């Protein structure tokens, strides 16, 4: 593939202040889109999110900001002032994509609504990515990722166990899911624009992204007549439980056992008592799950994670090592794949960044990207030529 990236003929303007829009723009930027992040003079909110590389708060050292803003250039503009708005409109005049996450109505309120952008630039694809979408009774509600997990059904039904209150997950996953959906929608709009020559306005809701993701909720309810609830796998020793090993944890599966899971695992672990008929079916294993766990765990504790992975793989068994982020960073497999890309940053030095998850013609497309910009790093370069 070209060294420039697939989207190098596309200009993106991001005026988002949440992870959803930032991640969406990053996905495009890492594929070569010329992406300008417009920040308020004090910087994007994520710049002030802990933790910070080297500890002390610093606008260029937030790990959240660094991770979600690769490939972009940064410009600070005060959209509360007419001069800032005028500069924004100049930038928008030749943008292909504008990603914004203001409360519905807020951009119109300061004279930068979709109609204004469209008048300036009929080809612009505007993605509005908000907690609850542009319409409906919740349109003006406030949100954050936990609220999206709650209102999207994720908290009640997905993470967590049956015997405890709902528990969510981490690192703004509902926002990231919304961001990925946004990238899909933008690609569709770009392909449609090739034919129509016209831009469009996309309305994306983080709450709806959350619902569409643990997707079994609605149709399950409709077919089975009851709301799915968290904890369905709580007693699945062979198929879901986290179990200790010598140096970590693992989750087993019954996959790859040719429909004879207990035979396969009894042989692999060297524990013939697993062949007891009381463990023969999933239902009977659940009835005796504590006893089963107490047979399996001592055997697993004889294994180091990486050895266990290698040997189960050789026999076609499927397991999941519960890896820490450190183990992921140090993974020999990912190293061999060339998955992480080292990017240099003047404030935090060189760090390895995750790739997008796909290799194109054998190459990691992240290789052409750059580390997140410092606050206002490109003011002169970009605004200088507009003045």
């Amino acid at each position, binding site marked *: 593939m070209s060294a420039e990236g697939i989207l190098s003929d596309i200009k993106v303007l991001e005026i988002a202040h949440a992870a959803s829009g930032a991640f969406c723009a990053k996905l495009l930027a890492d594929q070569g889109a010329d992406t300008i992040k417009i920040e308020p003079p004090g910087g994007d909110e994520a710049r002030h999110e802990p933790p910070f590389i080297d500890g002390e708060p610093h606008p260029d050292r937030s790990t959240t900001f660094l991770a979600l803003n690769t490939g972009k250039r940064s410009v600070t503009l005060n959209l509360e002032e007419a001069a800032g708005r005028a500069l924004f409109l100049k930038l928008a005049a030749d943008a292909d994509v504008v990603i914004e996450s203001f409360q519905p109505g807020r951009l119109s309120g300061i004279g930068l609504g979709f109609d204004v952008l469209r008048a300036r630039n009929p080809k612009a694809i505007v993605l509005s990515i908000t907690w609850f979408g542009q319409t409906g009774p919740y349109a003006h509600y406030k949100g954050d990722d936990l609220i999206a997990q709650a209102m999207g059904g994720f908290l009640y039904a997905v993470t967590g166990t049956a015997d405890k*209150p709902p528990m969510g997950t981490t690192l703004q996953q509902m926002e990231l899911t919304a961001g990925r959906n946004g990238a899909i929608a933008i690609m569709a709009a770009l392909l449609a624009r090739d034919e129509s020559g016209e831009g469009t306005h996309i309305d994306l809701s983080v709450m709806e992204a959350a619902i569409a993701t643990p997707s079994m*909720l609605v149709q399950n309810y409709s*077919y089975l007549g009851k709301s799915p609830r968290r904890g369905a796998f709580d007693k699945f020793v062979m198929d879901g439980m986290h179990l200790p090993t010598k140096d970590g944890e693992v989750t087993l599966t019954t996959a790859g056992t040719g429909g004879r899971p207990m035979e396969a695992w009894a042989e692999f672990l060297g524990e013939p008592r697993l062949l007891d008929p009381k463990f023969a079916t999933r239902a009977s294993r659940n009835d005796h799950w504590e006893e089963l766990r107490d047979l399996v765990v001592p055997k697993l504790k004889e294994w180091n994670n990486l050895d266990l992975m290698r040997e189960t793989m050789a026999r076609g068994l499927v397991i999941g090592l519960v890896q820490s982020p450190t183990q992921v960073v140090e993974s020999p497999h990912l190293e061999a794949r060339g998955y992480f890309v080292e990017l240099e940053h003047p404030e935090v030095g060189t760090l390895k960044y995750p790739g997008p998850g796909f290799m194109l013609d054998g190459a990691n497309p992240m290789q052409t990207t750059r580390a997140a910009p410092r606050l206002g790093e490109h003011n002169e370069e970009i605004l200088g030529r507009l003045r």
Partner: protein
Amino acid sequence: MWGPGPEGRSMSALLPLKGIRVLTLEQVHALPWGTAFLADMGAQVIRIESVEHLQDRKAGPFVNGKPGPEWWNEGANLAYFGTRNKQSLCLDVTKPAGKDVFLKLVKHCDIVTDNFRPGTMQRLGFDHESLARVNPRIITLSSTAFGYTGPWAKAGSRARTVDSVCGMSYLTGFEGGPSQRASNNYMDHSTGNNVAFALLLALYRRKRTGKGMRIDLSMQETGVSCIGPAILEAQRGIARPRLGCSHLWKAPHNIYPCAGADRWIAITVSNDAEWAALKQIMGSPAWADDAKYRSVEGRHQHRHELDRHIAEWTAPQEDKTLMRSLQSQGICAGAVMQAADLVDDAHLKQREFIQTIQRAGGPRLYAGRPFRMPGLSMAIRRTADLGEHNEAVLRDVAGLSSTEIAALAADGVISNRPRPEEKAP
């Protein structure tokens, strides 16, 4: 099988992928979820199925948990992503005649996708290089657990094992508690979304360069891309704690009990103004005036005690009423919704997010896509019965005569129902 759906109301004027043809050898969840986006956008997605492997059609869920007489066409998930807006070609590609037909189709297709383990496509003679010889502009995508290269390439996965191996499970759990899986299928969805994104990128590039592409997509790597900040932190010795529903610096930021069984509300406070507003709504209780709650840092430091006080206040209240009341005062709050709440939710109704289709003997509800674009219908317009499109695809795409098609059916290379000995799930 066609569902009337809402397309009668908003027949899509915009089909960005009209004219694009996708052949997909797909099973289970991640890849079908990804190709469904392309089908929604107007691509002709031909799902190749096999009577040898009917797991997806056995997976349900079925109405009231009971498979009906035509169980292989009735599962709920088939309509949501398995055959959503796709065609079904039930073709045995392991037989020589089936393989010939497959390669004839490849000649007239734009994209071929699969989610076999690495090696299977090559064994079938369907690896990228072989397909590119038949069709030099072909885009191929293989969606696998760990990618085509590297020491773990041969390992299989389930979405929940990806959740653990990518680092997500390690970061998830109650404060001070053990690691916990974030989801049984979040990684399927993230991977599927990544499939759609990668394929759209490849189509975009081909429009400009005329070149095909080989995409090697990894579920594990998609998972790691979901925890970027923690990956950077790990390289500099910063340990990210498990926090349950708590937050690294916001407090209150948790769920609190409400009236009724297993009813909860999430409340999150980011700054002093929101805290002041919350205090006022709570009736300015004496405890809330304690100096230790005056700053963001103080509230976070004393968050457990703070959570107990707030829980006492929320416990007798109705979750949705409290949510409306808090939001009307500018406080970030959301009821912990169950599926039954979602299908009844006024906001989602007004946004027409939930779609009703006629299926499996009655009206069935499905969540929609989270984005809306004028003219573009991402609704479920139809689902495909097993082998429903055998004849149409073989005739119109592969150019076979009705005699040739009849011969394939007689030889069992194509079929449109399970074999007689197949048992209902």
